[in-house]
């Protein structure tokens, strides 16, 4: 004979499901504070800074550079953006913002330990020449602002995964990506993420760190 249906069992099953769903929701939204991946990423980073692996870059001046994560890395605090040089929207706006920031930084010796870094995620198009054009266009001075591309696709994929940067095809031969300013210490810790249109806030925050001097 079939066992009788039970209200207790139904109640326990329903409550367990609600409990599990609530826990999953709490975790994925970072305590109900963010509903999009980009927002949650910006909340998670300061609370639990991810440790980025050493990244080898090739710069617009043709040299090899490791900005963070190993003994080659000079003590510095980096304001990092991800871009591609053909980009007509966010990245050129970021370029203009960084150009302005570079001018502002020159006026204050407190910024000596802060570096700007634009990393291209389009190695297929952004060789040294393309990077050089971008750097010249935005008057990047190599001792303050480095324009570079990761040494290999594997390194690029890793830094994207570790930072939470997602680059997708925009359907017009370009890319769509989450544009932001990432604050990375030379030990490889990603400590803050600022919106791409608040570079001043990023600079002001970087100045408060002892590494900036």
């Amino acid at each position: 004979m079939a066992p009788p249906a039970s209200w207790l069992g139904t109640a326990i099953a329903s409550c367990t499901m609600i409990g599990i769903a609530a826990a999953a929701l709490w975790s994925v939204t970072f305590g109900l504070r963010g509903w999009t991946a980009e927002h949650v990423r910006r909340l998670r980073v300061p609370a639990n800074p991810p440790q980025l692996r050493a990244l080898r870059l090739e710069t617009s001046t043709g040299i090899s550079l490791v900005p963070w994560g190993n003994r080659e890395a000079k003590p510095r605090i980096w304001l990092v953006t991800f871009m591609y040089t053909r980009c007509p929207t966010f990245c050129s706006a970021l370029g203009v913002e960084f150009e302005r920031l570079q001018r502002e930084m020159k006026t204050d010796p407190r910024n000596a330990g802060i570096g700007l870094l634009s990393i291209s995620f389009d190695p297929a198009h952004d060789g040294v020449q393309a990077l050089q054009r971008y750097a010249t266009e935005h008057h990047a001075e190599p001792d303050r602002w480095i324009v570079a591309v990761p040494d290999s696709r594997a390194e690029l994929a890793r830094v994207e995964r570790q930072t939470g940067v997602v680059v997708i095809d925009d359907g017009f031969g370009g890319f769509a990506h989450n544009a932001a300013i990432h604050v990375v210490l030379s030990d490889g810790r990603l400590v803050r993420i600022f919106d791409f249109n608040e570079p001043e806030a990023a600079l002001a925050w970087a100045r408060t760190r002892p590494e900036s001097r």
Partner: protein
Amino acid sequence: MGTHTTRITLTLSRRQAMLAGVLTGTVILLFRSWLEADMARHMLVEFPLLLVAGLATAKALPERTVTLIMRSNQLGLAGFTFVSLTAAYWMIPVALDQALSSGPAAAAKYASFLAAGMLLPVSFQAAPLAMQAFFVGNWVWMTATVGLLYQSTPQQLCVNYLIGTQLSTGEGLVAAAVAIAVLWCVYAVPAYLDMNPNM
């Protein structure tokens, strides 16, 4: 003789159901990256396909397992709760993104929709019209609201999907909500009139 025939039909239909479930599952696995490359295909094609795969698999479950499940599914309450939670959770942009970037999240998505599909028919059978109205109505307004939000937000909600596909997903969700509401009414109104012949 009659019993014998019934049993054969049942076995066959079980086998067919299993086959349909496995086939749908295979199709999803084969076309997974294509389905998930577009937000509208992900939410409006892959999610329903997963439900169908679950639905078919449920038909193939042995009677005893179904009885065991139904012991804790009075009036379909637990089943409907599970389906509602699953539908709601995977409409959250950050959850949808996570299903693309993390293996365990993707597995949870497949498993929860398959299970939701398995629970749907038995829960409908067990639920009186009032219970059905509550859960169907709840799903309809939730889905329509999310659909409208996807359309009215100027911001790209998922890092993996462009705003264009977000817009068409929003339109699709509203259409799905309306379609399910109409379909359920078409089924429920005659059923209600059958039960209340005096009306």
